[in-house]
């Protein structure tokens, strides 16, 4: 069915509806990645956002829910150029359209995504709407589009109860012919346990909308990971005596998480090793007195070059963030910038001086995206090892 994508600036893009037929208003952001539409849809950092895929042909291999980044898709909409409908897949992959219908997420295809992206690049990220049909009152729509806000989405996407993943747990299972499609009724992502992986570390993870592959990266590296709701008090977490704390990625403006800043402060002040990713990185920065700002159109893709200043090496990273730590506001008594974006020089990593804390703005877990920066997980664990050595 014909429909339109309307942007806050009044521009209108014609297309065809797919997925859920409902109307949607959300913030429109674009991702330049070539692969990984499922990982993007299920990344909770996209809660409240519609994802515009720069890569033109989407849905080519269907959906393997085992490879999701959370137990459900969180993005509010999917905007593509050309949707592929799957036929007779030997692995019983689910058609992307069916998947979106099942999860009541609207999509629109046939969009001139490049024009749309250039608009956002020039004017900055803005809200938008996907109409139900071809009848719409532009003025009324624009009022509603303009009014749209996405307050503290973290509260919405975070776990409500704690959950522990055993060491050796692994997901992203490759479905082979004959294997059945896992049940996917808003329950947990299926995973298996590799008994050969022994438990050596106990990690506490604060879930701001975490990507599952962060967990798999840790459980593969001999970690038992307990995931806590975003607003869990620090003393509850510390009472479990974790070897390290991870602050996950998550959606929205970091300032919205103001209420839990004292928790974060309490965590690192306890002396526990802390590793923050994305929103986690921003929250530690806020807790230590730095400021964040919104980027014009964000960094969303899997080709972002980041320089590790200490190693003098450039790594290609997976990124998904609309906000960034303003490096001028980082007190160099408190922390130093460890990683910068090669293209725009923005702050991509901080190492703290008084506390055993290091954080990065990008996604070392990839999914989607390069695995080049997984060394950061190793660094996290070797810091724990060192810490143990010192304490012994």
């Amino acid at each position, binding site marked *: 069915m014909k429909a339109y994508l309307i942007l806050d600036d009044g521009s209108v*893009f014609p297309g065809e509806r797919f997925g859920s037929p409902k109307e949607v208003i959300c913030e429109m952001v*674009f991702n*330049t*990645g*070539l*692969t*990984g539409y*499922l*990982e993007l849809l299920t990344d909770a950092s996209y809660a409240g956002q519609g994802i515009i895929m*720069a*890569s*033109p*042909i989407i849905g*080519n*291999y269907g959906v*393997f829910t085992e*490879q999701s980044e959370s137990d459900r898709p969180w993005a509010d909409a999917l905007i593509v*150029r*050309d949707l*592929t*409908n799957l*036929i*007779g*897949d*030997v*692995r019983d992959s689910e058609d992307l359209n069916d998947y979106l219908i099942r999860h009541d997420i609207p999509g629109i295809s046939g969009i*001139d*995504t*490049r*024009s749309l*992206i*250039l608009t956002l*690049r020039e004017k900055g990220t803005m809200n938008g709407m996907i109409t139900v049909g071809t009848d719409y009152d532009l003025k009324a729509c624009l009022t509603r589009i303009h009014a749209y806000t996405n307050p503290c989405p973290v509260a919405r996407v975070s776990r409500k109860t704690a959950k522990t993943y055993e060491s050796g747990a692994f997901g*992203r299972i*490759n479905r*082979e*012919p004959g294997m059945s499609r896992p049940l996917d009724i808003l329950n947990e992502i299926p995973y298996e346990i590799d008994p050969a992986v022994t438990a050596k570390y106990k990690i506490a993870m604060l879930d701001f909308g975490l990507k599952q592959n962060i967990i798999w990266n840790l459980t593969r590296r001999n970690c038992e990971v307990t995931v806590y709701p975003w607003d869990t008090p620090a003393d509850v977490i510390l009472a479990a005596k974790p070897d390290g704390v991870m602050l996950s990625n998550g959606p929205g403006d970091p300032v919205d998480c103001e209420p839990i800043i004292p928790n974060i402060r309490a965590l690192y002040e306890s002396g526990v090793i802390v590793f923050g990713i994305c929103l986690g990185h921003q929250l530690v920065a806020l807790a230590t007195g730095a400021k964040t700002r919104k980027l014009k159109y964000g960094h969303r*893709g*899997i*080709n*972002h*070059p980041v*320089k590790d200043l200490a190693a*003098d*090496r*450039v*790594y*290609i990273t997976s990124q998904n963030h609309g906000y960034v730590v303003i490096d001028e506001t980082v007190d160099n008594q408190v922390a130093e910038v460890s990683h910068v974006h*090669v*293209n725009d020089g923005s702050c991509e990593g901080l190492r703290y001086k008084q506390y055993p804390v290091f954080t990065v703005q990008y996604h070392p877990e*990839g*999914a*989607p*995206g*390069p*695995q*080049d920066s997984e060394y950061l997980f190793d660094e996290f664990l070797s810091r724990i090892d060192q810490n143990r050595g010192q304490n012994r």
Partner: protein
Amino acid sequence: MPKRTDIHKIMVIGSGPIVIGQAAEFDYAGTQACRALKAEGYEVILVNSNPATIMTDSNMADKVFLEPLQTDVIKRIMLEEKVDGLLATLGGQTGLNFAMELDECGFLAEHQIAMLGTPAAGIRMGEDREEFRAAMLRINEPCIPSGTANNPEECIRLAEEIGYPVIVRPAFTLGGTGGGIAADETALRQFAASGLAASRVHQVLIERSIAGWKEIEYEAVRDAKGNAITICSMENFDPVGVHTGDSIVVAPAQTLTDMEYQKLRTAALKIVAELGIVGGCNVQFAQHPTQVDYAVIEVNPRLSRSSALASKATGYPIAKVATRIGVGYALDEIPNEVTGTTFASFEPALDYIVTKIPKWPFDKFVKARRTLGTQMKATGEVMAIANTFEASLMKAIRSLELNLMGLRVPLMMEMTDHDLWPRIKQADDMRMFAVAEGLRRGFTIDEIYEKTLIDKFFLKKLVNIVNMENAISNMKVLDDTLLLAAVKMAFTDTWIARLSGLTVEDVRSRRKELGLIHTYKMVDTCAGEYRAVTPYFYSTFDMTNEAPRTDRKKVLVLGSGPIRIGQGIEFDYCSVHSVWALREMGYEAIIANNNPETVSTDYDTSDRLYFEPLTADDVRAIIENEQPEGAICQFGGQTAIKLIKAVSDMGVKIFGTSADGVDAAEDRKRFDAILETCQIKRPNGTTVKTAEDALQAASELGYPVLVRPSYVLGGQGMAIVHNDGDMIEYMRIINLVEQENPILVDKYLMGVELEVDAVSDGHDILIPGIMEHLERAGVHSGDSISIFPAYISERIREIIIDYTRKLAVALKVIGLLNIQFILYNDDVYVIEVNPRSSRTVPYISKVTGIPIVDLATRVMMGAKLSEFEYGTGLYARYPAVYAIKAPVFSFEKLHDVDTSLGPEMKSTGEVLGLSTTYSEAMYKAILASNFKFPPKGAGILMTVRDSDKSDLVLLADRLFNLGYELYGTGGTANYMNKHGVPCSIARRVEEGHPSTIDMIDNGTVKMLINTENSNSNDDREGFRLRRHAIEHGIATITSLDTLVAVVECLERDLKPGDLKPYEISVFADIVAQTRFNCLPLNEMPMQNDMLKK
């Protein structure tokens, strides 16, 4: 890391002549490398034997040596020039092999010449099968079960271990020469023999066949610090088994999940790190279609055809970046020229899809085996960019110039299901069309998948196109919704009209009424994330146009499309020079082309690049968008010239010779009338349509006659016919394809062929030089050894100048003109006039120092020849030099193609020999063409037709006196012995063992002299013998004229190390200084003395 300051003078080794597996991509890579090095302030010394390239232009390097690529030649130049750096990873396998040889023999170390880029150890690790496997084992990357073998018995033992079917891959070869998939021992023995012979190190890899896995490639770039990125992933339409050069390829990979994609990407980066790559590297994987399994197929530790494709597909200039890395820069220190604000250390993001389809020579070599396997057969390729797979495929198909506009092939539509299925199963050049035809008939995707293992993603997309074609052909009146959907799939107005039966005008006007106008999008490396400045565009039917018209005066230059036999890299050379001239003159130069391998499709060659098919519809759209002052169709070979009428009819001014002038040269009647007015002779002839007419014409003219279709390039379908039987056969074959134009039948004159290229301003002409063909008329000019200057009398020279001027004026030629003459009984006949650029333009341009294309372009834009410094008439009248062009063939890659030369062109490339003496120039040319001179005392097998026997006697005698062991088949041997030349009798195959074939097998014979029997039915054995010789790497001579030159070379006994290298600009200076001198009398060329006496 800043650039190296310890080196100053860098040698770049080019890839030599165009052969199958090594084409124009290395001109693109080498040109980028030379320019990058010069920009960094290094002195650049270039060696390459290929005169048709941009990289061998004198201004591309500080010194350009158009010399044979031979180790001793390269060493000598290195020492004389005192180079201290060597960049060899941009000259294909050829350049790399020389670098490895120079390294292995200690030459580089001895003379302290630094090998830039990937160190030799890394290259060896990537190229040597066993070292590579060991490396993969170290880093835990899976390889396909395999082993190396150095003899046939080892091959068989290994295959039994691994299990059939097995793939045979020769080590150190390009394009998989000599390899193949063997299902059993018999087949394996055959491939083992050819594979071992083809390998530089006599080694082959035997590996398990993993048919049905996806073939995925990554282009990786790594710097000396260890930063590594992948530029592009590519996925083959055909599963593993078809050489990637022969596969339809899409970029980026379409059917991989992120997990699969990243796993392969990480593996690619691990591999380039282990090899220590400093620069570019191609990594090929096989990915299991459903399991996590993958295997590393191979790497190319150098720039390759795939890296050229990746460069054009992404806009990322891999060759330039690899060069900068080679001189010391790190990836994050090299700016991204496309955006101007970002750096080379990022991975391009694509918001479109690219489809590449190979261009195979089977339309020329109708008898060649068309099946595709591990040995590459394509001569070139086309690429198309669009934002759906369907549209990119449709564009790529029409770029092939197969007279196809979609997936419908009439011949296949007529096949029975029974006949169609084998065509679907068999991987060959037309398989995709057979698959489409099957889908049209309702064969299911599952059925076809089962037989082909082509990913269902691609099959599904083919169904979309097939359905659209069906819907359009069922459309009685224009349906707007359908029209919209069809144009978005890149259906042209013409295709929609042809399918629906509506007129093109109706389709076009309705389309425009609906606002469906071509809009152009930019290739910007970053999917729109950053502002970019690349003027590199592809068409869509989208909302915004990113190529708005500028207010500058502009000219559109039509390119030459894919490299094919008869239309090679020289036309890209011409297009590029035309564009450069226009830019210098202040015009905005716009180029349209679809060949990803070339310099013309580099985004910084022109002011604007339209990467589009070259059909009337696509060109019309560009013209509507740009509204140029005019178009230039003279430089893009037949591709561009055949569009001249359509472009002219659009109301666009044609700069240069008009469409009418082109028609006058092509139309037999009009041309004859012009010749008559000018009082110029031509061989008698007529035009025919039917076999009856042809027989009638032949009987009037008298055999032998030359027959050919009109309006073709490269002598396609041309033959010399000696009798009625052959004439009937010829007409039968030629009329299998519907002929738009009549067939020309001409009296065949066996004389000396002379050729000129000239620039005409409509009044004056400038002929840089006259060339003479070594082989007598009848061998296609592109396959002849061409000698500059021609050795002709003053009278003939004047006639040629006079005829050229007359024809230029009569045809109203503005710009370039190529004429072929025959000197017969001391009289000059015109055989062909082409009012366009020709194959010889780059070569004659370089050796005379006259920028022919630049002059032609300026003349086309209104300048007069008298305004330039080169004068008019014949420029190099008596230059004291010889510049000899020799053809290069790719016969070893094309089974069932006859190696015998005739009027139909067969060569894929060419080389040049330059000297102040004839014999040295000839030796250089033949040496550079990879002719393997037989060693002293070796056996030479002779079997020639009766009419050649008397001419052979003298030549055979000279060979005998040189100490060669002569063998001949019955008739030839008897004739020789009777005339006093000792010659042993060799048995024909039917005469039992040891036969001629055995003598090749056992190494007795090192050269074959065989002239084709004029009656093709009697020549089966000759054909078999010639093929056998080629497949065993035995030098073969099929014309006694060629033999004359070879014998001369053997007598002079020159050695590569003795050859004096000439820098091309110095050579041109000698021409300029001596052009009015008389020929040096101490050196009487002997070319054609047999004919001229």
